């Protein structure tokens, strides 16, 4: 059938087919002719009948379209204190179509305004060359009143440069809450490719990090359009139609700037994260990542040297520790593990285990933090005194996958979905995880250290905050969020086997602070409200077998991290506090108690 030139055909068929094809070609020819005549008619309409109109538009006068940038929405704290606003500044706007030699123009400008940062001219010239002709280019320098008026007088010498007053982002509290707010900066090519360019016409700012980035489309607004009639030299003849811009919407955050500032001053000079949430709804009252930096430096384009200093700072101020810092959670996971064990009937809460200061397993000695051991301990004592050996024994009965399954619903090992653009996942180890990540089998020895929050186990402070909020809530899962208006997902509840189990775990966490044996008792002696919590320490380097550990010999960088999770008051909790202090010389528990005290005694009464 698949003959070299088709099927066999009779002479009549061939003639018929040729006739059919010729008819079709004639029809196609007629179609093409018709459409070409339509095109010609269109051209005659444009070039002949409407010539005068278009000639006028093109030659004598031209209409140029200018975008009017919208006012960016402001960001407030929960009590309407301004966290990010806009302030008017003078700036120089360059029109690429009217500047031939940018180098000469800049050097003349430098003579007129000697205070301009001339060392940035090269960088600017390069940016200018690469920029699109359709967008205004702003020289990233904010002129003083005096410079502005001096330029205005000499403006005629600089065709293509105009003095504009524009609104610029301003963060009145400087460093405070910078990792939550983020900042706006100059929009770059990569970002321009991901947004609707028409919506960003006339703007050179876009949210780069934090809430500013997360809620960019809410905050940004829509530009207006101004049609301007200019002559061939670009002189404005008159302004035509104006469509006003639509300002961006304001955002109100859950943050309380007073609490935020209190915590930041309390932990000044530390490398630390603090998250304070309302456990009932996930609202974040304080979001502290230290050290911070001043976002105002980024708005106008940060100088190279300043940026380099931030980058090379050994304390890494640019890192958003709350969502991107990943730490072994240490003993802070013990209440969660204990709860899982008694809910799963692995152990009775009253069963006592003897702790000689270590547990022997396959010839290895797994040491307790307390060398001489805690003696006979039950679950309550194990949490209160943070007894490692109790949990070592428990780990053998639970196995890593049960530990994983009990901890996962609290938020460990997956994103909390906080309303910020970047969030690390952390690691909640399991057999499946190790097989996938490392292609290796799980060893029981790894379970023993995982159960006390060491080994592969990594969490972010925001995960800890979500977990402690969930525990305080008796298993009702809330999503931590900064924006008060953020939609909350459907409520989820961790299944409860026996409510008494939850009571018992929370009671033991109360005694961590209440009774002298408790690991945080000495910091909480003076508080006048009930608080529950759990301390934790995570090792920065691992101690070898039977090695002694001498705090004084270690350099500051190798000191352990100090952690604390807790909530207050115990009945109907209002705040959950998570504190992580890197290479701590002060204790997280101490700070958390002070923070809770400040909230309970200073803020609560005023609200």
């Amino acid at each position, binding site marked *: *059938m*698949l*003959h*070299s*030139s*088709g*099927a*066999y*055909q009779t002479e009549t*068929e*061939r003639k018929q*087919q040729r006739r*059919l*094809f*010729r008819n*079709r*070609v004639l029809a*196609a*020819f007629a179609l*093409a*002719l018709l*459409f*070409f005549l*339509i*095109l*010609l008619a*269109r*051209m*005659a309409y*444009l*070039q*002949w009948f*409407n*010539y005068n*109109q*278009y*000639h006028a*538009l*093109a*030659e004598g006068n*031209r209409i140029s*379209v200018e*975008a009017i940038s919208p006012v960016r929405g402001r960001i407030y704290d929960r009590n309407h204190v301004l966290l990010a606003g806009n302030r008017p500044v003078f700036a120089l706007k360059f029109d690429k*179509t009217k500047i031939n030699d940018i180098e000469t123009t800049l050097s003349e400008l430098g003579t007129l305004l000697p205070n301009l940062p001339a060392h940035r001219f090269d960088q600017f010239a390069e940016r200018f060359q690469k920029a699109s*002709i359709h967008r205004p280019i702003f020289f990233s320098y904010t002129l003083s009143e005096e410079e502005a008026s001096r330029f205005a007088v000499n403006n005629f010498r600089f065709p293509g440069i105009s003095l504009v007053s524009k609104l610029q982002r301003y963060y009145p509290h400087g460093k405070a809450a910078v990792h939550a707010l983020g900042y706006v900066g100059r929009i770059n090519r990569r970002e321009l*490719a991901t947004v*609707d*360019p*028409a919506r960003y*016409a006339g703007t050179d700012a876009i949210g780069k990090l934090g809430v500013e980035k997360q809620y960019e489309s809410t905050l940004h607004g829509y*530009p207006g*359009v101004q*049609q301007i009639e200019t002559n061939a030299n670009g002189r404005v003849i008159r302004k035509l139609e104006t469509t006003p811009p639509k300002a961006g919407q304001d955002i109100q955050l859950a943050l309380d700037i007073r609490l935020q500032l209190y915590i930041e001053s309390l932990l000044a000079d530390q490398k630390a994260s603090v998250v304070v949430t309302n456990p009932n709804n996930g609202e974040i009252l304080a979001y502290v990542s230290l050290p911070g930096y001043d976002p105002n430096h980024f708005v106008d384009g940060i100088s190279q040297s300043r940026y380099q200093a931030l980058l090379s700072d050994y304390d890494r101020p640019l890192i958003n520790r709350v969502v991107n810092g990943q730490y072994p959670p240490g003993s802070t996971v013990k209440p969660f593990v204990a709860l899982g064990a008694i809910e799963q009937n692995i152990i009775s809460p009253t069963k006592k285990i003897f702790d000689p200061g270590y547990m022997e397993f396959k010839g290895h000695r797994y040491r307790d933090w307390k060398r001489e051991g805690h003696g006979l301990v039950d679950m309550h004592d194990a949490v209160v005194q943070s007894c490692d050996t109790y949990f070592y024994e428990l780990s053998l009965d639970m196995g890593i996958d049960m530990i994983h399954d009990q901890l996962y619903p609290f938020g460990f090992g997956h994103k909390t979905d906080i309303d910020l653009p970047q969030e690390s996942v952390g690691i909640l180890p399991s057999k499946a995880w190790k097989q996938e990540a490392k292609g290796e089998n799980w060893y029981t020895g790894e379970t023993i250290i995982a159960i006390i929050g060491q080994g592969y186990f990594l969490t972010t402070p925001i995960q800890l905050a979500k977990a402690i909020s969930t525990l305080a809530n008796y298993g009702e899962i809330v999503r931590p969020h900064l924006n008060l208006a953020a939609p909350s997902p459907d409520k989820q509840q961790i299944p409860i086997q026996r409510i008494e189990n939850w009571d018992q775990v929370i009671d033991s966490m109360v005694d961590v602070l209440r009774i002298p044996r408790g690991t945080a008792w000495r910091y909480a002696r003076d508080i006048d409200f009930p608080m529950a919590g759990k301390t934790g320490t995570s090792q920065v380097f691992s101690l070898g077998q039977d090695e002694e550990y001498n705090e004084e010999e270690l350099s500051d960088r190798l000191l352990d991290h100090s952690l604390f999770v807790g909530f207050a008051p115990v009945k109907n909790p209002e705040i959950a506090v998570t504190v992580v202090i890197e290479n701590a010389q002060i204790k997280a528990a101490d700070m958390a108690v002070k923070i809770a005290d400040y909230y309970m005694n200073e803020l609560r009464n005023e609200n």
Partner: protein
Amino acid sequence: MKIDLPEKETVYRQNRGGLEMFHLDLWLVLLLLALAALGSAVVYSASGGDEELLWRHIIRLGLAFGIMVAFAQIPPNQIRIHTPWIFGAGIGMLIAVFLFGDLGKGAQRWLDLGFVRFQPSEIMKVALPLMLAWLFAQNTLPPASKYLLLGLGLIGLTSGLIIMQPDLGTAVLIAASGLFVVFFAGLSWRWILSAMVAVVGSLPIVWHFYMYDYQKQRVLTFLNPESDPLGSGYHIIQSKIAIGSGGLEGKGFMGSSQAHLDFLPESTTDFIFSVMAEEFGLMGVLVLLTLYFLVIARGLYMATQMQDNFARLTAASVVMTLFIYVFVNIGMVSGLLPVVGLPLPLMSYGGSSMVTLMISFGILMSFHTHKRLLSASE
């Protein structure tokens, strides 16, 4: 009686001298060269006298013409035999793009083979008409309904895969080139008219359920360019100003103020026609449209001279594809059609679409110049 001629015994008539010796068609070559020359001049002017760009353009043109000449040497039988394979490979690559294609500008169109990166949809611009012509040439024309359905299925498959990239513009153009084959194969007028009514009737459904926001935006902008003076509406406004201000005689070579003052976007590529219209006026437009029209007329004439259905259908469809390109591009820049990113064949700077076009012209010339002495098998 049925006479089978094995492939190797197909005998082609000895060509008479001149260009036919190289399997080229004198008229077509002259017309294409004239268009290319005009195009080079306008590219040079639109770029503001950029000689480097002009040289790059000329080198690409030379390459494209070379490819055309090379394809003209391939005997039609060879093309025919390989058609199903080429088409199959093209479909395979479209699927590969879907599975592991590069994302360029948010659309998944490119296939990276390590040494070369290209758009398989370009191949399909030639492969689909060839495949349909091959299919319909299996039997007498007009095709029986089973061939017709199979053909429409292939058109649907090809354009469907391209729509998913998503590249609606190219999908529509490729579907059109396939539908031209169906048209030339002799689909009855009744069906054609019913299909047209059906398409127009289904437009609201397509609009509501099958179009992306950016595609809807383009259509809305086209209907009212002033609604989007900062986006693509701006392009159309400026393009119309450029064309209209050219008047009858134009502003002269290198006289396009709109392009030189950078009011006109993409002036060397998609909007090159506007520059030409501004510089050479309605007279120049008339010359250009005449050149294109002559190419189409000559091409269609050549199609009628061909000896078998495979050659006829391919040739006529390829010519009408050029027509579509020209009409859509000029219609777009003059505000008759929505903005679709489509170059003007042989005029616009660069582009892989020029290579595809010249391949199809090479095939056209091969069909025209390789005439069999014996046509008993037809």
